[in-house]
């Protein structure tokens, strides 16, 4: 296989997030410094230690037909909304690509939790005969990928990586590999999550993973800040259309960026705790940079995974500091979006690509007082307001419970 046919580019993007119902409004809100975090006011939350959430800015009911929506879990609805935006953006429907050469890779961290829990309520209250016949296709973790595949008529394969908060990034890497191995000509990739419900909230809270800064929603998610105390659960989805560069050029597609490389590692350390020095993350970053044919010096910007947990942020800072160095402009966008779990890697790839396009790095919200850790102190973390800069390569990190580490490198075309 020649290098040119393995060159993978991004030709479409879509998203629905706590900051906006599409890519443009989300990016605008991010650069404007707006927060998607609010305090839950439902009765059930009163005994919960962590009461914050970043809900979708635009309800899926406004973007998807009612009858279609009632057969899709919320995680599938947002996946389809983001994927259809990306597909329109790439002019996928008029691309002339054979459906048997179109694939989908769409990940989720949790899957159809709202359906599972909602139908369990029905089972308990009304019995087995009243459980919806749509329950299984709505709760299965490949459900979002399948729904997206159906939406665009993809027949080259539909895949659903599940690696917690690395799922979205893993989907992108998987899509890149399908193109590199010539198993498809166009791949719609992304991640989705919609699990705002008392059970996941209680579970994450029991792990002491969530921020309890309930009185200050907009200030609760504060990556790399000394006062950070956990993440804020968010919902949403993001999607990319990937193609080989020569095919994109031949059909006259608009190209946002090149997906130049990916690195995937596993910690082999603990089921949920990050390695203190972020060793697995560091190896993923190094692998992605090598895969892209670059060196650490080429990376001008890093969109960090940094979720605002005490341990995770310093581990990642250590890995960036040690593997890439202190020259890239680092940002952690979860300060405004909250943590979209299985969609985080896809959304932050969208942000990384837009940062490359616009040559601007969004600020890390709420980074008032950077952690004393030497790596955090060493890094050039953008804060207070976005910073304009000139860079041609950027890296996006995503890590997930289970010890999953993903790094993706994007470059200008």
């Amino acid at each position, binding site marked *: 296989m020649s290098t040119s046919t393995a060159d993978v580019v991004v030709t479409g993007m879509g998203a629905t997030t706590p900051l906006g119902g599409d890519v443009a409004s989300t990016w605008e809100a991010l650069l404007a410094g707006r927060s998607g975090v609010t305090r839950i006011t439902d009765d059930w939350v009163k005994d919960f230690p962590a009461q914050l959430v970043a809900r979708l800015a635009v309800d899926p009911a406004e973007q998807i037909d*009612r*009858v279609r929506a009632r*057969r899709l879990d919320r995680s599938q609805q947002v996946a389809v909304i983001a994927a259809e935006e990306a597909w329109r953006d790439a002019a996928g429907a008029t691309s002339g690509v054979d459906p048997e050469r179109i694939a989908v890779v769409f990940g989720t961290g949790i899957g159809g939790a709202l359906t599972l829990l909602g139908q369990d309520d029905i089972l308990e209250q009304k019995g087995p*005969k009243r459980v*919806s*016949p749509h329950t299984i*296709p709505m709760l299965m973790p490949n459900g979002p990928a399948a729904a997206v595949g159906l939406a665009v008529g993809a027949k080259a394969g539909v895949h659903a990586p599940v690696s917690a908060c690395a799922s979205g990034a893993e989907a992108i890497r998987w899509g890149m590999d399908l193109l590199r191995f010539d198993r498809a000509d166009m791949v719609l990739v992304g991640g989705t999550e919609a699990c705002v419900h008392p059970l996941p909230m209680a579970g994450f809270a029991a792990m002491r993973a969530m921020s309890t800064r309930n009185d200050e929603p907009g200030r609760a998610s504060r990556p790399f800040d000394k006062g950070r105390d956990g993440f804020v659960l968010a919902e949403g989805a993001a999607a990319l259309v990937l193609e080989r560069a020569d095919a994109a050029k031949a059909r006259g597609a608009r190209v946002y960026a090149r997906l130049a490389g990916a690195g995937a590692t596993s910690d082999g350390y603990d089921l949920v705790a990050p390695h203190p020095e972020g060793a697995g993350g560091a190896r993923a970053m190094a692998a992605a940079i090598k895969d892209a044919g670059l060196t650490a010096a080429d990376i001008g910007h890093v969109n960090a995974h940094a979720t605002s947990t005490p341990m995770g942020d310093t581990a990642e800072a250590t890995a960036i500091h040690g593997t890439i160095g202190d020259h890239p402009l680092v940002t952690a966008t979860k300060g405004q979006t909250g943590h979209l779990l299985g969609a985080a890697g896809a959304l932050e790839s969208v942000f990384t690509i837009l940062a490359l396009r616009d040559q601007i790095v969004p600020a890390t919200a709420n980074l008032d007082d950077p952690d004393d850790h030497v790596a955090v102190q060493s890094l050039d973390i953008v804060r207070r307001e976005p910073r304009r800069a000139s860079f041609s390569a950027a890296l996006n990190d995503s890590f997930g419970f289970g010890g999953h580490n993903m790094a993706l490198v994007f470059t200008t075309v």
Partner: protein
Amino acid sequence: MSSTAEIQTGVAEILEEVAGVAPADVSPEKSFTDDLDVDSLSMVEIATAVEDKFGVAIPDDELGNIKTVGDAISYIEKNQG
């Protein structure tokens, strides 16, 4: 006891809610799957909704015999309490 017209209206309401079928498209000769584009899982949902609305039981082996809106109406007329 509901009249035939009331039953047809009730079935049309269920079809609209579950499958997005326009009430004007619902008439006795229409096939659920061929004419109204109702898939097999939605057919199960419709049967459950019919059971709730009209107080009839539709065993699975009977559901297989209900092909048209007219079949559903006759079944409900015969079995309602």
